[in-house]
């Protein structure tokens, strides 16, 4: 790992100011960024740690909305959202392993937009709002392809607002070595319809399976998607699974998520 200057501000304002320096990067929990730095795949001149900003660490359920601070570790979401939004709490509680969950943060995972990360599927399936230091971005506009998001340079996720669904479930088919999702599907049912978001499958990152959404909005049952299929074109192909295998997983996991939704 190349060396860099390290700053640890205690407010969002100070972090945003520190990130104006050339070649600076924000450090959330570091569970992806630190391995990336070790591989010399990133070489910032300065790292601005967000870990000292207490205002970014919270989980609050208010009037049908779950608000999660950008710097909240997965373990805290798993604990504190268990009553208000159990499907999201379970998702957070199965990321990585316990030590990783104590460090990795919601905002970090969402900003990184790894094509196999769990969080983006929940954000997109819930039509959550990503709040930054400057604006609010809807989930549908936020994710823009593998590791690409609508975030500008130096822009920080301060909060994510999830409308709490009537019923939801996340099915993760785990790649056992990395504990990332080989494929994962988040299904969320709202009064005005059902949304289905898929991670780990597409080379473009998280996406909505709109055909399934239409079918499930009409009939919220696993049988409603029986006649549908997912196009394997553009799916991730690697030693863990072919594109066709992942396409099949999307359908199977969607069915399981619908059956398990609560």
């Amino acid at each position, binding site marked *: 790992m190349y060396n860099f*200057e390290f700053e640890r501000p205690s407010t969002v304002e100070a972090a945003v100011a520190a990130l104006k320096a050339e070649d600076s990067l924000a450090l959330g929990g*570091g569970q992806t960024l630190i*391995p990336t730095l*070790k591989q010399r795949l990133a070489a910032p001149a300065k*790292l601005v*740690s967000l870990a000292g900003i207490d205002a970014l660490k919270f989980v609050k359920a208010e009037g049908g909305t779950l608000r999660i601070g950008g710097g909240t570790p997965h373990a805290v979401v798993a604990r504190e959202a268990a009553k208000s939004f159990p499907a999201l709490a379970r998702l957070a509680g199965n990321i990585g*392993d316990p*030590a*990783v969950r104590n460090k990795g943060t919601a905002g970090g995972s969402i900003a990184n937009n790894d094509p196999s990360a769990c969080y983006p599927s929940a954000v997109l399936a819930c039509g959550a709002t990503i709040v930054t230091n400057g604006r609010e971005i809807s989930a549908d506009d936020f994710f823009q392809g593998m590791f690409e998001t609508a975030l500008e340079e130096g822009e920080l996720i301060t909060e994510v607002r999830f409308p709490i669904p009537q019923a939801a479930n996340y099915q993760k088919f785990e790649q056992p070595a990395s504990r990332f999702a080989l494929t994962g599907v988040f299904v969320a049912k709202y009064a005005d319809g059902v949304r289905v978001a898929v991670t780990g499958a597409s080379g473009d990152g998280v996406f909505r399976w709109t055909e399934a959404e239409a079918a499930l909005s009409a009939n919220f049952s696993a049988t409603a998607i029986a006649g549908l299929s997912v196009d394997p074109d553009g799916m991730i192909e690697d030693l863990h699974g072919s594109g066709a295998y992942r396409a099949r997983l999307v359908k199977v996991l969607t069915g399981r998520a619908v059956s398990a939704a609560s």
Partner: protein
Amino acid sequence: MPKVSMTVNGKAVSGEVEGRTLLVQFLRETLGLTGTHVGCDTSQCGACTVHVGGAAIKSCTTFALDCDGAEVSTIEGMANADGSLNTIQQAFQDHHGLQCGFCTPGMVMSAAALLKENPKPTEAEVRHYLEGNICRCTGYHNIVKAILAASGQDVSAIAAE
């Protein structure tokens, strides 16, 4: 070089580090606390597990400067005040919860974090919690047994198979 200060096993410590200095390097190389091991250096194996602010983390994937002002506990702080093994360490000895011993510091730190959260875990809960701690001697059965015994549960019925 920037200076970092923290409390390690109840003692105030400080030292000069680089931005890139990992917590595990600070513990081992600056403080000489070599009980915390570096196994994979990729946050997979858990040999470097320590507690920061009471939570288990991987010290190979944490910067020393990010722990400025924090309370850190390592395997060196686990023994009882009189130097005897604590309950978890003693259970690892009694139940042969180690073979080569390389993963043991991380296993003990993870076990301590688990039992704090969940004082009477089931066997399945212990196994699930140890997902991020790898033993390449594959001595998991006795490790799980030791942790269940440390929680005060009867392990005579658990087969070591």
